[in-house]
């Protein structure tokens, strides 16, 4: 397990509001399986509305059947399906061989119909998880849909708020959007607020891979409820640029990283805005990492900045690793914004967002290869975003950016620590 934090620049200006960035990298410990893993408690919530008929529903059911087959007797699961009506197909049950067999029978009977009460279906899934909370394992509701919320609670902000409230009560949410018609902003928002993950499934054929990957992660969690806490003196404003939920309490900023799997690496980028100050004065920040189970044993890192004259500020060295992370995050945010504008037909606006971000990155890219690559990619996309796009391309672009923002790999899975020379 490792935790480190670094800043892009150490000096700040006495008569300007300086912006400085912190890159915090957290790697979860490797799982120690000698006593087996803690039991998980899952609910599978599947959209059965008319548009899911055919391959999508068939493959979703198959994926859930396979996921259930991987559970142990101590694990729990529930299955909820919804259209405009919500059916509790399998109420929360221990994953005994009989219960699993029974679930397979029940799943086989489900066919597609009706419109989509996404919020209701999801909440009923969460309720099943909440009825039998696992003390030591992961409690999570997995929502798979190809559509919009058009019955029941449909307000994005409200659904995200409920997801955040449930996360605080240890029920997390992961979402899977299938095809072209679901609402990625809603599903990403629910997963981010809900402490889980969002997956875009372009082709029904890969539903199984995505569900398997997510269930596999819940089985491999080594630290639950991980939070990064940043304590700064008065006057420094702290903002997390990643999508993880952030809570500010006075001089403390707490970023929720959720449940981390064995050796998972998460990168968080923070932006700090400094007040004016006296040359020679120093300001510091303390970053610490904690989790519900004590896997992280309260690691902390201190960073300090010093007020210096403009000339020294201009000449100071930059930490390129931080610059690269910052550029990648801003590029991802610009892409998501541009996709939204593209969909609304605001092509000039989409072009402007991407160009403006590219211009800012060019300002500090210098000769750094990685920064120049990020810049070139973004510049190539300017005209793509400024013309009508296929919906699938929009979803793909949004999803790739969501993965950058959420510290996930290109396939939406956890990023694992690369074995270094000092490791076996």
């Amino acid at each position, binding site marked *: 397990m490792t935790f480190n934090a670094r800043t892009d620049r150490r000096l700040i200006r006495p008569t300007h509001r300086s912006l400085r960035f912190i890159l915090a990298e957290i790697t979860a410990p490797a799982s120690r399986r000698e006593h087996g893993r803690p039991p998980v408690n899952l609910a599978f919530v599947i959209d059965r509305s008319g548009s899911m008929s055919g391959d999508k529903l068939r493959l979703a059911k198959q994926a859930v059947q396979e996921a259930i087959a991987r559970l142990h007797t101590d694990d729990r699961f529930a299955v909820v399906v919804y259209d405009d009506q919500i059916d509790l197909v399998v109420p929360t049950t221990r994953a005994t061989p009989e219960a699993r067999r029974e679930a397979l029978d029940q799943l086989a009977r489900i066919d597609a119909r009706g419109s989509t009460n996404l919020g209701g279906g999801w909440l009923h899934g969460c309720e099943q998880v909440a*009825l039998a909370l696992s003390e030591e394992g992961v409690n999570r509701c997995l929502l798979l849909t190809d559509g919009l919320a058009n019955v029941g609670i449909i307000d994005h902000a409200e659904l995200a708020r409920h997801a955040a409230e449930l996360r605080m009560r240890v029920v997390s949410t992961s979402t899977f959007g299938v095809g072209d018609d679901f609402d990625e902003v809603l599903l990403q928002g629910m997963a981010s607020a809900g402490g889980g993950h969002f997956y875009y499934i372009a082709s029904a054929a890969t539903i199984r891979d995505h569900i398997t990957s997510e269930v596999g992660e819940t089985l491999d969690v080594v630290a639950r409820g991980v939070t990064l806490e940043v304590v700064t003196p008065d006057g420094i404003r702290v903002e997390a640029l990643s999508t993880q939920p952030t809570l500010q309490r006075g001089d403390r900023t707490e970023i929720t990283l959720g449940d981390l799997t064995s050796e998972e690496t998460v990168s968080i980028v923070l932006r700090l805005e400094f007040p004016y100050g006296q040359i020679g004065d120093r300001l510091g920040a303390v970053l*610490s990492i904690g989790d519900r189970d004590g896997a992280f044993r309260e690691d902390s890192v201190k960073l300090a900045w010093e007020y210096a004259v403009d000339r020294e500020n201009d000449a100071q060295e930059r930490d390129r690793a931080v610059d690269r992370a910052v550029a990648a995050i801003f590029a991802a945010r610009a892409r998501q914004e541009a996709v939204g504008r593209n969909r609304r037909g605001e092509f000039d606006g989409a072009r402007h967002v991407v160009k403006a971000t590219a211009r800012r990155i060019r300002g500090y890219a210098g000769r750094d290869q990685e920064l120049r690559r990020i810049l070139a990619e973004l510049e190539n996309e300017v005209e793509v975003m400024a013309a009508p796009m296929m919906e699938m391309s929009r979803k793909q672009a949004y999803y790739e950016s969501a993965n950058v923002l959420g510290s996930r790999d290109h396939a939406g899975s956890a990023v694992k620590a690369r074995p270094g020379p000092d490791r076996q």
Partner: protein
Amino acid sequence: MPAENEYSLQDLADLTEVTPRTIRYYVAQGLLSSPEGAGPGTRYSEGHLVRLRLIRQLQREHLPLAEIRARIAGLDDEAITELLEAPTAAGVNESAVDYIRAVLGGGVAPGQMQAPAPMPGPSLLRRMALPDMPAAAAPDAPSTAPSSIPDRSQWDRISLAPDIELHIRRPLSRLQNKRVDRLLAIARQLLEEDQS
């Protein structure tokens, strides 16, 4: 039975819903003091109980363990008890089940007294699923929609066995919800016996 105000590890685990493993971890981490005795004869005090309850409460507020330790370090049992009884941060104490049921219309909103027919606020009600209503009409239903319970209710279909289903019209009161949970547990047990 244990002596007055003395608990075995299992007693403590049952009372606080914390596993024995986690309790031992807290002792190792210094969040709880070492208990008296050793092995099966180990005895935990009232102080352990209130401390453990406070740790659980603070964890529900999502405080990291380091922060919890900092908060409870140096406090005596009386101070711990006081903290335990103080009102907590915005309703996080409310369980996930209560929260969901309040949203779905079957429970009590945080901080409210149990009313004879607890219901969520009108804006939420308008967005609840109405079983016989056309899909397009539900989200933007006018605020003048009639407000009697049957109009807002929703049927849940719970499958108990291949040929047996239970239908429940929500919202239900908290008490009714508890009874339904019991009914489900008994029904499932009965049906499992049937199969074996």
